[in-house]
């Protein structure tokens, strides 16, 4: 198993609060790795720390065999990591088209093909191409946020709770899309919706109180009811 991303003994603070105590995991290339855990466990902070939006106080983050901890976020992004934040981060005054084009690092044939592929997946984005991003529905915003991260040829996508606040039918659509993206890229997913996580994920890591406490293949987790109840509140 060749790992694309590896976090070892990562610790991080937000102001004076010690949020991540000991995070260890690997993201194998070509797979979907899911970070699970209760609210406030440190999942979002872990993604933000990988992106350099939160400083690492201890430990290492290695991406494609290169240490990236505490590098500037724009440099990390340019190494091939796309990030879909929890709040989607849509630029409300830019149109759907501008939101996508602002993210495009190149406007070559390959990027155009990726854009066309994503627009076929989300026809709503094509339909509302000239509509300001701020006027989209929650589901459309999520689709735009995912598309914006995917439009460049990133080696790794970090997706933070894509199902949050969405109607079940939209969650289905988002799930289908991530499953299709899985064929083309590596994904690190943070997800509270266990049903969705279990359908998409290949392997999981459970984070509790800022530490990775369990990991394994997603199939194993589905069988372990006691573990799910203890850390995820799923019975």
């Amino acid at each position, binding site marked *: 198993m060749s790992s694309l991303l590896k976090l070892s003994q990562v610790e991080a603070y937000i102001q004076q609060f010690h949020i991540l105590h000991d995070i260890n995991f690997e993201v194998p290339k070509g797979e979907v790795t899911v970070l699970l855990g209760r609210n406030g466990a440190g999942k979002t902070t872990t993604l933000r720390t990988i*992106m350099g*939006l939160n400083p690492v106080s201890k430990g290492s983050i290695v991406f494609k065999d290169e240490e990236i901890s505490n590098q*500037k*976020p*724009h440099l990390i*992004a*340019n190494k091939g990591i796309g*990030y879909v*934040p929890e709040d989607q*981060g*849509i*630029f*409300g*005054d*830019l149109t759907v088209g*501008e939101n996508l*084009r*602002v*993210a495009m*690092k190149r406007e070559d044939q390959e990027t155009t093909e990726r854009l066309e592929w994503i627009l076929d997946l989300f026809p709503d984005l094509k339909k509302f191409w000239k509509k300001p991003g701020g006027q989209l529905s929650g589901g459309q915003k999520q689709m735009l946020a995912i598309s*914006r991260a995917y439009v460049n040829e990133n080696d790794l996508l970090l997706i933070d709770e894509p199902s949050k606040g969405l109607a079940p039918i939209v969650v289905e659509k988002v799930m289908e899309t991530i499953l299709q993206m899985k064929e083309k890229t590596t994904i690190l997913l943070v997800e509270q919706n266990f049903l969705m996580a279990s359908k998409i994920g290949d392997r999981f890591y459970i984070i509790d109180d800022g530490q990775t406490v369990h990991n394994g293949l997603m199939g194993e987790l589905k069988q372990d009811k006691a573990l799910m109840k203890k850390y995820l509140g799923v019975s």
Partner: protein
Amino acid sequence: MILKSMSKSNLIYLGVAVILLILPFILTGRSVQFMITQIFIFAIFAMSYDLLLGYTGIISFGHAMFFGIGAYTTAIFMDRYDASFGALLVAILVAVLFAAIVSFIVGVLTLRLKSHFYAMLTLAFAGLFLVAAEKWRSLTQGNDGFTFKVPEFLRDSTTIYIVSLVCLVLIFFGLRRMTQSPFGRVLVAIRENEERTISLGFKVLHYKVLVSVVSGIVASFAGVLYMLSLRFVNTSVFATDVTIDVLLMTIIGGVGTLVGPILGAALIELAHHWISGLANVHWIFERWIILYGTVYILVVIFFPLGLVGTIRSKLSNGSKQKIPSKKAG
């Protein structure tokens, strides 16, 4: 052929510019011509502020500093050297370079921090330039200011009017092109969500410093035109009032629109002119800043997007409402 390839809005803007170009040949009153020239100059100044506030979300409390740099540098040059066209060009170049350097330094020092640091440092720098202009009398003649000669062809008020109008049109289309380019999209993205823009791989500081430099250059150029129109300069060009005026022009007209600040400049200048004329009617009209403050509060409450922003928003809502009826029909 060229006209055919232009967008509808560009054609409208060009049409208005042509009407304004003909205007001085119809209107003979020098005071009206002078007032419209001032509107053109302040419109350029307000557009420079809109680049910062409207497009990038950066607040400056000392934008008058760049205006003053443009005015003083050119005035000092014209006063010390001959009033030839060549000397004027060199003076403009020096003024613009000086403004670029100052805005670069202020930008690099503060734009990596939260935006209020930029606001506070520009305020401090503007204060510094004001004090320097007051105290360095051998160069600036302090509060009294000084008059100077300008090249022969610029002594005619109609020429100044046309030069200011041409500069306004060129700068407007230049800035419009810039704000609609990929660079402009990144500026809006920074204003909307700076952290997200960074995570997309943009070195945000570079963009912010660059836009601060462009804004400083345009503001200094407005200062150059202002000085040429008056043929006189004093420390009032560095005053906080000038920054307040430009802030009002931008907010009342509509931030992030470029056209809004032009409209705002016209409204504020006309109001200035009108209120000054009422000074004999009641003492309140001498305290125009009180009236401006009231107008500002009302605009923020009732037109938070400014005039142009509100009109655009109404139009887009109107067209949205039309869609279902079209389908129904």
